[in-house]
Structures are given as structure tokens and as C-alpha cells.
């Protein structure tokens, strides 16, 4: 237990901050994922074959390639890409990208592919009559989307989005390879310096279980709220 003490003698405070870091990266990645879903869901539903192709390539590639490989691509390639863009604008110094941003972006792109599929499925399963009724009522495009389609989409999407959240949360453990100090990285450091990997990795497992457990409880509440009309 003294291994978990707060302060200089134990790893309690370090692991606490690492847990906060995991939460922060997961939420950021999830939001980046929503942003990607916002772009790619309409493309998926569009009647234009070319736009369809782009969106399908995105979701197929990301869901068919290991997360770790995507993270390596961003970790090793991110700096190069940013420096290339910067050099176009005439900036030629070395740019080091923050591990948080690289990690959140890599996980966000992955989570975005899953979210896109979830939103596409949800919108497609909304009854056609709902769209027609909205038209008949004379709602404009925004009214139709925000008042009719979005609330129903959210209700249908939340159970599946909670799966995406779980996947995203667990995927953040992989960014430990880039050196970002989240739960996994901190456990690795602690295990290395105390030579007690069994304890620290088991404790990391408990922390992840706690995070998934608590977030499930919260999402269930959200689910109840969004289906209150049913």
C-alpha cells in the first residue's frame, strides 16, 4: 500500500494525475472523432459516388488497420507533415509536436471512423416518414435537422457511441508508446523503478476498470434522458 502513497514516497499522486491525463486524452480524442464523423457521415449518406468512396475508404482503412500502426504513423510522421506544411509558409525550424496532440489526434481519427458508422446507422434507421413529416410542416433545413433528425439520431446512437467510448478509452493505453504520461506510461515508469510490475500493471487494470465502470453508469443516465419520449 505504501507504494501508492501520495507525495515523494509513493506513486499515488503520479498515478492520479496519469488517470486525469487518460481521461483528458480520451475526451479530446472522442471530440476529434465526432468532428471527423460530422464530416464523413454526410459523405457516406451522399448520393455522389465519389464522396461515398472517400468516406468508405476512410472507415474501411481505419477499421481494418491496427490502432498501433496508425499511432506509429502519426508519431513518426506527424512532425514531418507539420514541418512540411510550415515550410510552405516559409518556416524552416524544427517543430516538435506535443505528444498529447499527436496521441489525441491519432486516437481521434480511429474513434471517428467508428462514430461515423454509428451515426450513419442511426440516421438510416430513422423512419422515412419523419423526414416527410418535417417537409410537410414546412421546416427549413436547419429546423429539420436540429429539431427532428438530430434528437432521434442521438437516441439511437447513444448505446453504440458508448461502445465507441469504451474502445477509445482503451485505445489511449496505446499512446503510451509515444511517451505521453497516462496510466499505462506511468505504470511502466513505476514498475521499472520499483521492480514491481505485477502490482503496478494490476493497479492500472483496476484504474481502467474503474473508468469504464463509472463512464458506463453516466452514459446509462444519458440514455435514459434521450429516450424519455419513448
Amino acid at each position: 500500500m505504501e507504494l501508492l502513497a501520495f507525495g515523494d514516497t509513493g506513486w499515488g499522486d503520479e498515478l492520479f494525475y496519469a488517470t486525469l491525463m487518460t481521461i483528458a486524452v480520451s475526451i479530446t480524442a472522442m471530440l476529434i472523432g465526432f468532428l471527423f464523423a460530422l464530416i464523413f457521415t454526410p459523405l457516406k449518406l451522399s448520393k455522389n459516388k465519389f464522396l461515398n468512396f472517400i468516406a468508405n475508404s476512410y472507415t474501411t482503412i481505419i477499421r481494418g488497420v491496427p490502432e498501433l500502426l496508425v499511432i506509429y504513423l502519426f508519431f513518426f510522421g506527424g512532425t514531418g507533415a507539420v514541418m512540411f506544411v510550415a515550410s510552405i509558409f516559409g518556416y524552416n525550424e524544427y517543430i516538435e509536436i506535443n505528444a498529447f496532440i499527436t496521441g489525441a489526434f491519432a486516437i481521434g481519427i480511429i474513434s471517428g471512423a467508428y462514430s461515423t458508422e454509428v451515426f450513419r446507422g442511426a440516421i438510416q434507421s430513422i423512419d422515412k416518414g419523419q423526414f416527410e413529416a418535417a417537409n410537410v410542416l414546412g421546416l427549413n433545413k436547419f429546423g429539420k435537422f436540429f429539431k427532428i433528425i438530430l434528437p432521434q439520431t442521438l437516441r439511437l446512437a447513444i448505446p453504440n457511441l458508448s461502445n465507441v467510448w469504451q474502445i477509445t478509452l482503451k485505445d489511449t493505453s496505446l499512446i503510451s508508446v509515444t511517451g505521453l504520461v497516462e496510466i499505462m506510461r506511468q505504470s511502466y515508469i513505476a514498475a521499472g523503478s520499483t521492480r514491481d510490475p505485477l502490482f503496478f500493471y494490476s493497479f492500472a487494470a483496476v484504474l481502467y476498470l474503474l473508468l469504464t465502470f463509472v463512464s458506463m453508469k453516466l452514459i446509462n443516465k444519458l440514455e435514459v434522458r434521450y429516450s424519455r419520449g419513448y
Partner: protein
Amino acid sequence: MDIELMINSFPKLLSAAAITLKLLSVSLVIGLFIGLFFAILRLNKNIFINRLAYGYSYIFRGTPLLVQIFIIYFGLGQIEYLRSTILWVVLKEPYWCAIIAFALNTGAYTSEILRSAFQTIKPGIIEAGKSLGISNKVIFYKIQIPIAIRQSLPAYGNEIILMMKGTSLASTVTIMDLTGVAKYIISTTFKPIEVFIVAGGIYLFMTFIIHNVIKFLEKKYSFN
């Protein structure tokens, strides 16, 4: 774009893909038995046994695969007692540690898939078997299990693909699988995009094959 590097690294990555497939197939076979075992426990009416099986699947589904591998690979070696038993022969090899972790992980997901498949079997089918005078054991092996396997094919196909992506984590415990070799080439040549295209292409190809095999099996074993 360094086309030459892409062509040169292709054979290396392809032979690494063989290791990925080996890891995948061995852990899937072991995981299937673990999954079936725990799915049957989940159907047990005894609350203790039931909870035990649920706890297993909850823990392995609620924690990242990386943690599971690290506990088995780095953690278990710390127990002095284990080092003196015959188990140590297996546990000191990173290859087997990875397989144990993968098998336990996929076993947890498989048990959930099979459990829900067992639960969706219509009671009428089991009753029909009973009224024909078939023993409970035969009903289970000849009626329930085949139907459950058919029911769970789509979900299990997804699980195979997820597991294939999961085997990439073997590279974190020094195994040179497809991702391991890709990372090695990236870190020596600093050409991440080229290597990603080749390695990702091989992964996508494997996903494509698995996807189509499952689709074929689904059609073959469909009821109508």
C-alpha cells in the same frame, strides 16, 4: 514517395504477416474453447458460477489488451513460485505470453457472443427436441451448439478482425510481427508513410479475406 523502399520492404513485411497470422490462429482456437467454456458457465443457474464467468468477461473486456499482455509478460515473472514450476517454460517466452493474453482476451468476447447466441435460441426448438425424447446432452451438442454457432457467426467475424488488429500489440513484447517489423523499418528509415501503406495494405488484405470467408460461411449455414 520512396517506391523502392516500398518494394524492398514488402517481402520482409509479408513474412512478418505470417507470424501475425500464426499468433491470430493459435489464440483464436484456444480462445474459442475458453469462450465456449465460460458461455456455458454463464448459462448456469448457480449464481456463484454465473458471477464468476461474468467477472471474467467484465475484467477482460473492461481493460486494455496492452495491460493484460504486460501483466502476463512482466508481472507473472515476478512471482517466485511460478518460476520454479513447469509453467515457467511457457511464461518466459514472449510468444506464449502474447498468445495467453490474446486467448484470454478473445475468450472473454467470445463468451459474450456465444452466451447471447444461446439465449436467442427459441425455447420451442429445445422443447421439440425434448418431445422427441432426445436426451438433454444430445440436445445441447446436436441442437443448441450448432444453432448458436450459426447465430454468432457475424459477431464472431468482427471479433476475428478485432483480434487480428489486437495481435499488433505483440510487437510491444519484442515479437517481430507485422507491426513490429513495420515499426522497425519506420524507425530505421524515417519513412512512415511508405511503410504504413505497405503494412496497412497487408492488414487490409487479411481483413478482406476474413470478412469474405465469414460471409461465405454465413451463407452456407443460413437457415433458408
